[in-house]
């Protein structure tokens, strides 16, 4: 594990693990980490014990981690079903799952199949300047669906998948809220 040197004061020297520890499987970029939480100050990751000191700073979603003496600070916040971790100027998206639940889910047939439908949501509040597509039109990846003005910039919202435009819910000139659905691509 890069960036962490395991010194002799970890768990390795003799302490016993209690029976009721929590185990998590945390996935970042398709890499799975098995994290076992022993107590407030001790964890085991992928079999290696670490001494941790973990606190939120100043009542903000900013967390300070001291792990085997190394000091890290990150912004950690949930977004959809992931955790966004902004650490040393780099963003990691982590999925944290209870190991037991994850196993059960896997046994039940794995992930739900992704639906083919895409709902274009306004990434920020703004005004609809143009809708260069119409209902039923075929679009390719990268085609502009809506032009939204916000912060004096005209932002082109593009299709992330090919498909057919469906259910256009806004008109040119409309003011829209953040996350408001604008149209769908089937």
């Amino acid at each position, binding site marked *: 594990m890069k960036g962490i040197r395991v010194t002799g004061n970890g768990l390795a020297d003799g302490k016993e693990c209690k029976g009721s520890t929590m185990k998590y499987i945390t996935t970042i970029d398709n890499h799975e980490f098995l994290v076992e939480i022993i107590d407030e100050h001790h964890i085991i990751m992928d079999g290696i014990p670490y001494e941790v000191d973990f606190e939120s700073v100043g009542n903000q979603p900013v967390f300070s981690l001291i792990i085997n003496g190394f000091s890290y600070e990150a912004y950690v916040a949930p977004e959809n079903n992931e955790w966004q971790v902004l650490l040393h100027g780099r963003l990691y998206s982590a999925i944290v799952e209870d190991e037991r639940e994850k196993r059960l889910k896997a046994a039940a047939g794995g992930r739900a199949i992704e639906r083919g439908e895409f709902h274009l949501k306004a990434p920020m509040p703004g005004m609809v300047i143009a809708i260069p597509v119409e209902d039923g039109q075929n679009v390719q990846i990268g085609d502009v669906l809506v032009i939204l003005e916000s*912060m004096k910039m005209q932002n082109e919202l593009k299709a992330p998948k090919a498909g057919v435009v469906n259910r256009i819910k806004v008109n040119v000139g409309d003011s829209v809220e953040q996350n408001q659905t604008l149209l769908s691509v089937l």
Partner: protein
Amino acid sequence: MFNKVLVANRGEIAVRIIRACRELGLQTVAVYSDVDRQALHVRYADEAYHIGPSPSRDSYLRGDKIIECAKKSGAGAIHPGYGFLAERADFAQACLDEGIVFIGPKPSSIAAMGDKAVARATVSRAGVPVVPGTEGEGALSDEELLASAASIGFPLLIKATAGGGGKGMREVHNLEEMPFLLKAARREAEAAFGDGNVYLEKMVDGARHIEFQILADAHGNVIHLGERECSLQRRHQKLLEETPSPFVADDQELRQKMGDVAVKAAQAVGYVNAGTIEFLVDKDKNFYFLEMNTRLQVEHPVTEMVTGVDIVKEQIRIARGRQLRYSQEDINQKGWAIECRINAEDPYNHFMPSTGIISHILTPTGPGVRVDTGVYSGFEVTPFYDSLISKLIVWGETRAEAILRMRRALEEYRILGVRTNIPFHQRLMDSHRFMAGQFDTKFIEERFSLETAEEGLPDRAPIAAVMSTLVAHRQTQLSAQFIQRNERDTSNWKWISRWERMQR
């Protein structure tokens, strides 16, 4: 002479100007739109007047209301900052007509340089080299522009005649796509400047964007404060500026030659006050006049850091009719300065603007660090204005020291509540090409991405895994506790007082 200044702007530049006025012992008047009631410029000014709804066309672009506020408050001068009314000759003229000093150039200079086509013709006559393009009156029709395009050659740029800052600008690679792009550019120009006229300009390949800061007083003295390297842009928006330029570097001859031309260009329009001459420079050190910005620039602080000249104070002194306090020989570049523009935008999602209430800020401080900002913890970033929320400027004895200092300052900077492009700047500071000073105006868009920049860096995924797991674990535990409490607690009223205590 005036001793009260109205600042016809908002955000960091309004704060910057108020600070300069205060340090000169001048009274300050702020104007604000609906959403800006609690903005920093309103909090810092001696007086503040509401001028209308949040959209800038109803507030910060309402010259009539602003002049009315100046008269009501007895302000003898107006500083326009950048953007909004800064380059509107009619507004500058309206100020003069009302007997109010406009802290900027004469209306005729703004007009001459403001219409890019006229500007190019003017400096061209004065012997300053310009980039090939449509040099007419600027009000060309789509048909005329399409006709000229072939003779200029592709790739070329469509640019807003009244514009600046990349708005209304489009890159054209062939004739087929040009009609659609013309339409888009005109629409954006119309929205941004109330003027849909555009012109064409040849794209110089591998070009550097290097500009010279000019100061000119009303007594005929014109000097330059050296160059700024502004090649690092995305969608024609500058993201990082530095001075000296690593391209010009030790080539004092080139610096002097470009500086002389810049002074000549300013003189060609009888320029007074602070202004900037922008050049495109090709690999062979040929340079072409691009445009003159007849106002204070966003990136003026880097020049202040290496020359020691306070440009805004100098603007005000010039407007008061004083002689320049410096001659060309007094100006030396000491050390190196870099500015990163901190924008409220998400570098991980196509740099989409991000809005919301800033819940927490930790400002980088210490030796050699300057921050110019208009936001604070508790302030709401709204979609009405541009996304620049802060400028982080560092000085170092050498470029290497400045880069290392910028790295630590970026690492220290915490802004919560909105997304910012800080991670983008952090990756840029790690880029070998940036460190070597090897980049042109296309570098960010074509040869730099967060993803590839992250390759080869220390991978802290295991740490991120530990941290996200611990946060998730705590959340799970906390909700378990809440459920237990609910089961135990029979009196709902006790709950309320507990909440109250927790929030105190």
